[in-house]
């Protein structure tokens, strides 16, 4: 019996572009379902999110725009990976899409090889989630910051008792930091480890996602104790008090 193909929802109103994307993604072994307007996409995502392994989403659509679809999709499912594919290339647009729950952002015009790589990357994260949920009995909590992260349920339990469900990308980032505590990780390193970006890619994606993680784990996002940024170097997940004091005193000297 052939393994089931991974199903991608393609939301793109440009007919020729959609045709090309469907052709290529099908050739790459994916099962594509295509819609050309925002309202249909929102309806599908709110009623059948579990049927899709990933979403490739344009932002400028007739009806609801991509930002509105992102908001609605994330209310229903935190785990479905969403890659935004848009001609809007300003930093403000990218940040907004990532803040609203996109896992990755590709601007048009794009390299076909890069797009396929990014789609595979977000699917890998999704696959990891499905495997984690299947093994959830075996997985206990992981201490991160002042709280606990439960891989099986993709939930972070804060020290104050609040539980927050996190996305696959946020979880991937958390686990990378957890694996390498008290070490400064550069943005390029994080981009490569989590998003499989080529070195030299300029992007604020890391900053946006670290910001999101801070909002989840820190008591005060403005004064983080666990996810410290080191200017000109990157970020560090700090568990050791001496390392924390050292990094914080270096920051105040600057």
């Amino acid at each position: 019996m052939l393994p089931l193909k991974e199903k991608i929802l393609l939301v793109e109103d440009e007919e020729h572009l959609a045709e090309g994307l469907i052709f290529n993604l099908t050739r790459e072994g994916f099962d594509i379902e295509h819609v050309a307007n925002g309202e249909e996409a929102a309806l599908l995502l709110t009623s059948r999110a579990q049927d899709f392994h990933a979403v490739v989403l344009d932002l400028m659509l007739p009806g609801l725009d991509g930002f509105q679809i992102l908001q609605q999709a994330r209310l229903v499912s935190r785990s479905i990976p969403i890659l935004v594919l848009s001609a809007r290339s300003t930093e403000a647009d990218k940040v907004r899409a990532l803040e609203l729950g996109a896992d990755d952002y590709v601007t048009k015009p794009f390299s076909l090889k890069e797009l396929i790589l990014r789609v595979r990357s977000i699917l890998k994260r999704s696959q990891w989630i499905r495997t984690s949920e299947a093994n959830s009995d075996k997985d206990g909590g992981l201490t991160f910051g002042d709280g606990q992260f439960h891989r099986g349920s993709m939930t972070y339990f804060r020290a104050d008792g609040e539980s927050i469900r996190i996305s696959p990308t946020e979880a991937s980032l958390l686990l990378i930091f957890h694996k390498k505590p008290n070490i400064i990780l550069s943005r390029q390193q994080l981009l490569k480890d989590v998003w499989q970006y080529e070195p030299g890619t300029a992007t604020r994606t890391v900053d946006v996602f670290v910001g999101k993680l801070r909002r989840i784990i820190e008591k005060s996002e403005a004064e983080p104790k666990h996810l410290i940024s080191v200017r000109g170097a990157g970020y560090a997940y700090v568990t050791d008090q001496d390392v924390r004091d050292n990094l914080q005193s270096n920051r105040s000297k600057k």
Partner: protein
Amino acid sequence: MLNALKRFRILLHPMVIFIIAQISWALLMVVWIRWYISRTNEFEALLERFGPHPSLRAGQWIVLLEGCILMGILLIALYVVFVNLRRQVRLNQMQDSILSSITHELKTPIASIRLYLETLEMYELSSEERGRFLQRSLQELSRLQSLVDRVLLSAQLRTTFKKPIPERLDLNSLLMTSWQKMTERVSDKRDCQLIGFDECESIQILGIRADLQILFDNLLDNAVKYTKTGGKIWLKIFPHGPTKIEIVVTDDGIGIEKNQLKRVFQRFFRAEGASKRHVTGSGLGLSLAYAIVKAHKGSLVAKSPGPEKGASFHVTFKREDPSS
């Protein structure tokens, strides 16, 4: 502290400043007039003590009137500056939005072309598939060229008054070229009909071929943008005697509000329904169409029964006598 800062920011809003300026001006007028009248009365009372004297009142009223006129001019100037500033701010916002739309319009065909060429490069394709993808690339290239032409022509029509040499053109041929382009894109998604063409053969007008082609492309493109899938787009042609010809593009799309019927031809203007539906486009199409029609000494009028009831665009040109 944050709330206090937010409140302070509200005070810096141009409308709030304008209102404060108006109130201050009114208070200043009242205070000044009262002060002037009371000083005048005091001065008159003082002069009375020294004996009879000609009344100063007439001269003083003239001074008061002059002061009021000058203050009135100041108020009008303030108002004019404010209105122009608001208009400029709105225009800047519209231009930012339209620039974003134009960028999207340019990038999308480029993305398609790149996608198809990379597909041709990456895979071994059948000749049918290769032919189809090359065809798509050429269509997108044509779309890109059309947009660039529109943007450049729009800039040209606004900044320079060039006088290319008009020639006699077959109107049917121009219309059919635009119609074919449009129907190739959407005929399976829209009810497209031609009306009146069988009865009107060999209609000639004087004009610039490239500009008129853009005119008809824009009008049909506009109809496509604002009409849903399954909607109607009709192209009609009506002779008005031997000297005039009317071309009408009709759709049953989102329609136009009565108070916007003239504004739709303004540069960067988008009908109200467009923003709600996220209709893409440069916002230059109709303003360019209008400029082209005017340059050809014709008329272009928009009509609509109202929102969601469709619209029609009526272009009228002078006909050339085919026998001359």
